């Protein structure tokens, strides 16, 4: 008898669910921080996808785990930059909604 965690479809569905809900939040949210949270969801889904491919289809060398570690580093630096930008925007315009940001429009 195969367990639930021995089937790749379950993990694939969870990773795709994270991607789908991240896309929904990216369109639906109105503040920059909400969009940032959705991007984190998408990155987590990508990491889960890499690890499941590593475990189910190529288990000799943990390449997927290595790239998930790289994704974690990229996500951490991205959040640091985004925090700085959001704070700068908040001090300048007293609001973090992207609709109020018209300075970079041509």
């Amino acid at each position, binding site marked *: 008898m195969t*367990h*639930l*965690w*021995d*089937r790749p*479809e379950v993990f*694939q*569905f*969870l990773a795709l*669910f994270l991607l*789908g*809900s*991240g*896309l*929904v*939040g*990216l*369109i*639906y*949210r*109105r*503040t920059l*921080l909400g969009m*940032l*949270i*959705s991007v984190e*969801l998408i990155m*987590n889904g990508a*990491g*889960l996808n890499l*690890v499941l491919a590593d475990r*189910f*289809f190529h*288990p000799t*060398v*943990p*390449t997927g*785990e*290595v790239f*998930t*570690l*790289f994704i*974690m*580093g*990229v996500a951490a*630096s991205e*959040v*640091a*930059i985004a*925090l*700085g*930008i*959001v*704070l700068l925007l*908040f*001090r*300048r315009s007293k*609001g*973090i*909604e992207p609709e109020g940001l018209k300075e970079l429009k041509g």
Partner: protein
Amino acid sequence: MNLGELVFLCISAMVVLGALGAVLSNSLVYAVFFLLLAMGGIGGLYIYLGAPFLAMMQVLIYMGAVGVLLIFAVMLAGPFWKRPKERGPFVKGAVAVAVGGLALVVLLRILGHHHWEVMPPRASTPEEVGRAIMDRFPLAFELVSLLIVASIIAAIMLGVLSRRREG
């Protein structure tokens, strides 16, 4: 159903609930906590996938560092009543659900068409992960560290610029 399957179902429910709450909740603080719930669930999934080192890193980096940074950002971004409403108009929500659902369904169909050959389970040790990083991808490793240094310098510069403009 044995204990392992029960725990697995609980973890999957954590991931799904956390993702839905992070996207749909009305307050940003709750959204961050739901995101932390989903990240913890993903750490549990990593253990079921035979990657305990990655589960530890998930708890340390995502739930620790990224979670604290996001909570700081939410706290520093002004009081609640001054913020705009989190959720957009109804049409935008319908479009968002359509796009997300379409991506989910199409990608699931694509993955379902392929017949996957599943290997037997195997847990990887931290030593193997370290060897894979250092033997196979040293350039990518160094580039990630360069990226982190650049982002730290950029964050400091953003803070300095905002302070100079105020004073």
